[in-house]
């Protein structure tokens, strides 16, 4: 527990340290590649900041972030575009990599704008998944557990 809090503080610290670094750097900004198997949401678009729901905790990525690879859990990817407009996408999972040279690649299996979800449908699905968690069939139970994870994360953001 101490370790995670330590990590988070160090992360936050890094973020602050890098924020100044980013501002000092040329205004090239962060190049974002956000792609799904069936759609490319962003292809080499310059953005200001991207928040990603990594498994190890939510983190914000600015220009000149240190290269890193993060596994994404289910959660919201916030993209703050150059003009200051913020767009939120809910992803079910994926991988985010910061490449050397201020380039962020996010590959997710599915991503939809947060306001495209219907809260009623989520509630119904969640109830069904919760029922299946206790199933005797291990496979069904595992699938349901993942569903519950994703749906609770989704329920928290979709309004």
């Amino acid at each position, binding site marked *: 527990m101490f370790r995670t809090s330590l990590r988070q503080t160090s992360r936050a610290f890094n973020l602050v340290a890098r924020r100044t670094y980013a501002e000092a750097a040329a205004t090239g900004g962060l190049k974002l*590649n956000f*792609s*799904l*198997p*069936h*759609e*490319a949401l962003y*292809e080499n678009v310059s953005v200001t900041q991207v928040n990603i729901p*990594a*498994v*190890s905790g939510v983190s914000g990525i600015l220009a000149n972030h*240190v*290269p*890193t*690879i*993060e*596994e994404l859990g289910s959660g919201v990817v916030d993209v703050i575009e150059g003009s200051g407009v913020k767009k939120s996408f809910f992803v079910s999972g*994926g*991988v985010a*990599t*910061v*490449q*050397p040279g201020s*380039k962020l*690649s*996010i*590959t997710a*299996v599915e991503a939809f704008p947060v306001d495209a979800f219907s809260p009623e449908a989520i509630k119904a699905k969640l109830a069904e998944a919760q029922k299946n968690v206790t199933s005797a069939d291990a496979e069904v139970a595992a699938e349901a557990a993942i569903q519950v994870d994703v749906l609770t994360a989704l329920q928290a953001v979709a309004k």
Partner: protein
Amino acid sequence: MFARAGVNAARTVGMQSRNYATLREIEMRLKSIKNIEKITKTMKIVASTRLGRAQKAMALSRVYDEADSEVYTHAESAKVEQPAEPKSLIIAVSSDKGLCGSIHSQIGKATKKILAEKPTADVVVVGDKIKAQVQRSNSESIVLAFNGTGKAAPTFVEASLIADEILKLQAQKKYDSVEILYNKFVSSVSFAPTAKNLYNEETIKQSKGLSAYELDEDSNVPVAMSEFSLANSLLVAMAEGHAAEISARRNAMDNASKNAGEMINKYSILYNRTRQAVITNELVDIITGASSLD
């Protein structure tokens, strides 16, 4: 028995002398070629309409793949030394349907070439056509076979279902190197069988360039990366293969329609000429008959 043979011989002689039968034969042949032309033309049109969709899916999957594989280029995963005798797995991706030129045989040839170099390698085949090809020469190498893909543009669900099975296999056999063989779509008239290397978690961990990245030790990123990449690469291979197949089918059917057209022309001329000859012969018969009465 001899009597029957004699009858048959008599019949053939009779047919040749009368000419009517050959006329009917030509007519039937002409009709069947016309039917074939109709089929190939329709198949060409279907392939043309599907090509656009397939190419779009392929372009998207390429973007997706680039984002995914950039890490490996930076991490220099390709330079990691392999064991002296690596256990290899070849995933040959093609499809179930034929009538598309040399698409499947190219992959088959490429697979056999690799198998000649690495006789101990295992093969996973995706698609019935490639399965049949590999089975002919290296049936004992096939460990897993899939079919039913490639009817429409491939989806991530298909890719991850296949990846799931391959991961189960990987857990058992611990392959050192995994490569995917697929047809890369080069242009609408050409394709090239291409091999793509996949990296397992060990290779990713040993990659020199990986130290440039900040990694979370606890969350076991290399495992997630290698599993995710497998599904992604399969998707790309299937999407490229699908686009290549559709465009090859369009070209093959275009050629077939052209050939059928040529044959139809040839046979129509032959048919008309024979018909005229038959009519002339009949006229000659009638006139000779009539003049003999005088």
